[in-house]
């Protein structure tokens, strides 16, 4: 068992090379500045740099482009172990990795293969601008369109949120194919942040996940023809991208649940050592939290395994699986909130204090971000609609 300075105990899943690297980046680089990142609502640049140095930013990129071509399950482990130290760093890793996976799976044109090589060689950080003012978390529709009326194409989009936009090198965005295209006729484009204008439209002074710096922006810039993905955005979302998104973000919520459980566990163990022969009252509560967290962990691991087998069989587009991934997100994000609040009760006043090793402050606040980072109600509503035609739940 490995314990770090911030009191987080390494979950038993820290096995395998990638997870170990993730854990070390979390413990040695992200954790020491996590409170500062949170207080100042700034991007965790130290962790991003370490992820770049240690190959985490390119772990999902294809091997022939110089990446690690790791499995999504391994990336989920990295997101999970990072989350206990600094949820914002874990989310940056997760959100970047979703786009790296999209580039690997669907960036099959030669300019996008070149971009993947560049991303691997230089450790480029990829942000995302799918959500839009007016359509919210429903990314299957766009209002903004690629302007193809002039020889050099452009995009101008009112983005609801672009996490770590200003620290990124590339921004992947969905948009209507052209001015005449229907809202559902979307393409996916890779923009170079340095060529774009980012006008801040809304701030990021939030309850939690403050280091993701997910401001709203008006994003405008040139769209190189070769930067348009060769398949429609709907294919990217249905055949890999959407699934990886649910898995990697859920991994962050599981990591927060792990951290809450670990703190409550450490608290009752310390109490037990001071009063050998009695079972501290909080221990029963910890047993209850463990029941909930184990459930969330098992769902994540099972979903990651199922993903790998469907990916290998070329059957990622699978309605029951997509529904089960939405359920995974709802279950893990609510498990994180529940574990965090119950762990706070276990730790009592030292959990409530911000400067104690058992502080639940960031964990409680960050966990609530999981509930709204695409609203659980929206996903349940999607499932309610889909189950009307799905034959197996």
């Amino acid at each position, binding site marked *: 068992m490995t314990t770090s300075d911030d009191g987080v105990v390494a979950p038993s899943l820290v096995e395998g090379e990638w997870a170990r690297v993730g854990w070390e980046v979390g413990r040695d680089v992200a954790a020491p500045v996590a409170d500062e990142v949170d207080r100042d609502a700034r991007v965790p640049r130290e962790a991003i740099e370490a992820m770049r140095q240690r190959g985490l930013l390119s772990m999902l990129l294809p091997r022939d482009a110089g990446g690690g071509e790791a499995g999504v399950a391994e990336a989920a482990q990295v997101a999970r172990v990072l989350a206990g130290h600094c949820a914002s760093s874990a989310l940056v890793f997760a959100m970047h990795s979703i786009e790296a996976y999209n580039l690997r799976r669907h960036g099959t044109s030669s300019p996008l293969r070149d971009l993947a090589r560049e991303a691997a060689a230089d450790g480029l950080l990829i942000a995302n601008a799918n959500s839009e003012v007016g359509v919210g978390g429903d990314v*299957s*529709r766009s209002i903004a369109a690629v302007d193809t009326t002039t020889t050099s194409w452009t995009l101008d989009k009112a983005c609801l949120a672009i996490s770590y936009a200003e620290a990124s090198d590339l921004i992947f965005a969905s948009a209507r*194919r052209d001015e005449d*295209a*229907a*809202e*559902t*006729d979307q393409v996916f484009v890779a923009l170079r942040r340095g060529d774009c204008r980012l006008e801040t439209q809304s701030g990021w002074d939030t309850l939690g996940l403050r280091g993701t710096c997910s401001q709203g922006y008006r994003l405008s810039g040139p769209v190189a023809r070769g930067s348009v993905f060769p398949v*429609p955005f*709907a*294919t990217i979302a*249905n055949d890999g991208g959407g699934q990886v998104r649910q898995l990697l973000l859920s991994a962050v919520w599981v990591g927060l649940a792990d951290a809450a459980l670990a703190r409550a566990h450490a608290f009752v163990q310390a109490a037990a050592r001071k009063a050998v022969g009695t079972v501290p009252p909080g221990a029963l509560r910890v047993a209850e939290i463990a029941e909930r967290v184990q459930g969330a962990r098992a769902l994540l691991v099972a979903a990651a395994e199922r993903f790998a087998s469907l990916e290998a069989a070329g059957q990622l*587009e*699978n*309605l*029951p699986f997509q529904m089960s991934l939405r359920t995974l997100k709802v279950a893990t994000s609510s498990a994180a909130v529940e574990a965090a609040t119950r762990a706070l009760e276990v730790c009592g006043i030292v959990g409530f204090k911000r400067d104690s090793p058992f502080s639940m402050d960031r964990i409680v606040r960050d966990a609530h971000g999981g509930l709204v980072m695409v609203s659980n109600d929206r996903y349940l509503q999607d499932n309610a*609609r*889909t189950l*009307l*035609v*799905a*034959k*197996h739940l």
Partner: protein
Amino acid sequence: MDADATIRRVLEEHGRLSTPATALATDDDLYQRGLSSHASVNVMLALEEAFGVEFPDELLRKSTFQSIGSIRGALAGLGNAVPPA
């Protein structure tokens, strides 16, 4: 009513397309005509009702509902391309 006409009627009533369903070519891409994931569920339900079939999960993919032709092909595969009289 033949299968094509029934499919067009369902699309007209539930597809919320930007083009009238009667004006669509058999291979026109319905997603490019505005078929959203929400509307496609209603289209599936209405097709199941109109043709007295159930689409198995394997057919509940984007490509099945890409065009009038692909819907027709899927229904034919279910052994019931002609709606009950």
